[in-house]
């Protein structure tokens, strides 16, 4: 894996997620990121950015989401920064995975996937922005 980083500016539109996924995959190929690691980070970024676009920003918002992706000595680290009102998705209750079908809730699946796929997830409110940082080690 080669050292490098990329910063992407994503508009508040669900169609942007396809572009995000494409750029993340290109970054991964260029930097020889193992495909399983890339798959997980790509999906985690998709979930975080989707959440901001659908629930953080108003429809048609001019605000952007800044996604930074970086290789480290032992894996990948990425951050997602948005200008929506303060919201820590890590406070969302985990879905009850043992609940029977009729009691399974639709919410919380995305952030649960992020937590399950990543080795480390953290949130901070910084300079008026929500910043989620995710890390994935290469095993």
């Amino acid at each position, binding site marked *: 894996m080669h050292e490098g980083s990329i910063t992407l500016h994503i508009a508040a539109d669900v169609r942007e*997620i396809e572009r995000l996924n494409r750029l993340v995959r290109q970054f991964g190929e260029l930097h020889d990121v193992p495909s399983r690691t890339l798959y997980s980070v790509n999906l985690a970024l998709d979930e975080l950015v*989707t959440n901001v676009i659908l629930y953080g920003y108003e429809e048609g918002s001019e605000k952007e989401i800044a996604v930074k992706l970086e290789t480290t000595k032992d894996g990948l680290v990425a951050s997602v920064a948005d200008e929506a009102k303060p919201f820590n998705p890590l406070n969302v209750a985990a879905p009850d995975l043992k609940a029977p079908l*009729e009691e399974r809730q639709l919410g919380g699946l*995305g952030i*649960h996937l992020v937590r*399950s796929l990543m080795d480390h997830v953290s949130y901070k409110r910084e300079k008026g922005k929500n910043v989620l940082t995710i890390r994935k080690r290469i095993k």
Partner: protein
Amino acid sequence: MQIKEEKQGDVMIVTIDDHLDTAAAPAFEQRLLGLIDGGERKVLIDCGPLEYVNSAGLKVFLLAAKKLEPVGGQFIICSLAPSVLMIFEMIGFTRIMKIAPNREDALRAFGVTAAT
């Protein structure tokens, strides 16, 4: 997103595309729930081409399963790629949904013998 529908016996087989993401999920939801509203009770989703699914797409499977259960329907998902199966396991869907390795096994589970 390309969604293919075909009927085998009384089983409605829906084959989905390679990407089921936030942009594609609403069309899939509308088609799938529409089929159930239209009276389909045995629904098989063939995920053979599916390489990538996010929570927006996963919710559609959950909605369909929740809708079919109280009306005595059967819902089976088949041919999941390993990376997609891992996601299904991660969110506990393998506990609440029937997953078949391939279409033949799924049809057998519905009680339909493969056409010769």
